[in-house]
């Protein structure tokens, strides 16, 4: 799948240079898309006069195209191309005294911010984050001190506003050094709330955030929001493995028989698909309640539940001759699969540390690998007895 290939190239090739210089394109998958295709990538409604130049105004109500784009981005369709032209924008009728809110040029970040601002007069300064959301880009360094300084200067912000404050989303802080921005531009960085929806309350309170506005949790809504794209990204891998299982299942003591592909292969492929969907959907859903702290441990339980269910099913289907050998193969393969799936979910969570993930992988990956080999061997042996 196209999206998957691009993502893979992206993650593999984004090297350390992206951390240090904000200008270098971090991954070629984002660089290869022409961001100018839709002009600004957002519909503008007139402009606001300033001493420098007219600043394009954007609405605070999202249209159908915006909503459709959000849905597509969630499902990983064309999400690499979902960006807004960097630079200064206006919402409402801002003046020289109005606040400046900094955002990323991932359209979903930008849309979430502007749709939170009905009735607010403000400037939005969009940084070039190569179409990546604020938090991810801050980790990469593309949402960073250099880019912010550059955009403040390029927009000639000191000539447009009379104050010297920019409001940066708190999740941009890993990339931005507030004291350096001040030294280089004279602008004070105030960190705004984590969620765009809290921006009006934050402004109303005189740019003060409550502790809740500063906390990142991982509520059900956010956990489920990442499920579609995980399904899309894992699909290719799972479909290939299913195909391999189908082909292998033709093997038997009397040579190759296509009839076995249906009888034996289909249930096997279905089990694998079931493990993938169960791990990808129920893992995030049940995350707080699955026992264990390591995600690879939490994932194991989903597979074990399937193993129990499969055993019960086999006992009711063929109580006289349950195929315990095939069952043992799956008793190893299913937990290993769901453990691996949830371990890979670490990247989508909002609380796992690099050191922590490294530690759990040192334990989990060897176990998963041994289980995969043992399980597949057992599964093949079961074809022959």
């Amino acid at each position, binding site marked *: 799948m196209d999206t998957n290939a691009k*993502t*893979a190239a*992206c*993650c*593999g*090739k*984004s*090297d*350390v240079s*992206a*951390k240090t210089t904000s200008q270098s394109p971090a991954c070629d*998958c*984002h660089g290869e898309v022409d961001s100018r295709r839709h002009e600004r990538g957002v519909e503008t409604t007139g402009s606001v006069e300033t001493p420098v130049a007219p600043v394009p105004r954007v609405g605070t109500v999202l249209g159908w195209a915006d909503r459709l784009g959000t849905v597509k981005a969630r499902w990983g369709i064309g*999400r690499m191309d979902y960006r807004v032209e960097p630079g200064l924008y206006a919402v409402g009728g801002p003046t020289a005294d109005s606040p400046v809110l900094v955002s990323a040029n991932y359209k979903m970040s930008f849309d979430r911010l502007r749709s939170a601002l009905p009735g607010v007069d403000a400037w939005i300064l969009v940084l070039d984050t190569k179409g*990546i*959301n*604020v*938090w*991810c*880009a801050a*980790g990469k360094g593309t949402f960073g001190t250099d880019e912010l300084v550059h955009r403040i200067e390029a927009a000639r912000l000191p000539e447009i506003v009379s104050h010297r404050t920019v409001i940066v989303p*708190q*999740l941009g*802080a*890993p990339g*931005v*050094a*507030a*004291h350096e921005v001040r030294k280089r531009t004279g602008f004070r960085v105030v*960190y705004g709330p*984590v969620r765009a929806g809290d921006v009006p309350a934050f402004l109303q309170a005189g740019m003060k*955030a409550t*502790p809740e506005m*500063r*906390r*990142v949790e*991982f509520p059900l809504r*956010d956990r489920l*929001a*990442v499920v579609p*794209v995980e399904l899309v*990204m894992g699909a290719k891998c799972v479909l290939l493995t299913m195909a391999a299982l189908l082909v292998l299942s033709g093997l038997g003591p009397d040579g190759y028989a296509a009839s076995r592909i249906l009888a034996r292969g289909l249930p096997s492929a279905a089990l694998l698909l079931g493990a993938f969907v169960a791990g990808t959907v129920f893992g995030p859903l049940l*995350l*707080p309640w699955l026992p264990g*702290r390591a995600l690879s441990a939490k994932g194991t339980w989903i597979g074990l539940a399937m193993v129990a269910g499969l055993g019960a099913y086999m006992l009711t289907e063929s109580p006289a001759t349950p195929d315990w050998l095939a069952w043992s193969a799956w008793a190893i393969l299913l937990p290993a699969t769901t453990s691996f799936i949830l*371990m890979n979910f*670490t*990247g*989508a*969570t*909002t*609380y*796992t*540390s*690099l*050191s*922590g*993930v490294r530690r*759990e*992988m040192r334990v989990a990956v060897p176990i998963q690998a041994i289980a995969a080999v043992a399980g597949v061997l057992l599964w093949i042996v079961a074809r022959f007895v």
Partner: protein
Amino acid sequence: MTGIRYLSNVVTLRLDETKCTGCGMCEMVCPHAVFRIEQHQARIADRDACMECGACARNCPAEAISVDAGVGCAVAIIKGALTGTSPDCACGGKSSCCG
């Protein structure tokens, strides 16, 4: 503490209290309320909640904080191991790798 807990005693976060000026930036930028300011002095109140995002170290004007910042993403670590690059796919956000 609310929320889901990750592994204990693993993060690389360090605070040099002798350098701290008590400015409060670390407490403000941390998304997991790891720091507390008490008597004009930062204190690590909940070290295991740290996700090593690096926001505190980057914004400490006194350079009192150090942390090996990175993204806690198994996919990035696997890819890094396979391609020989450092894990850097900025997965930590609302979406999976490179979202």
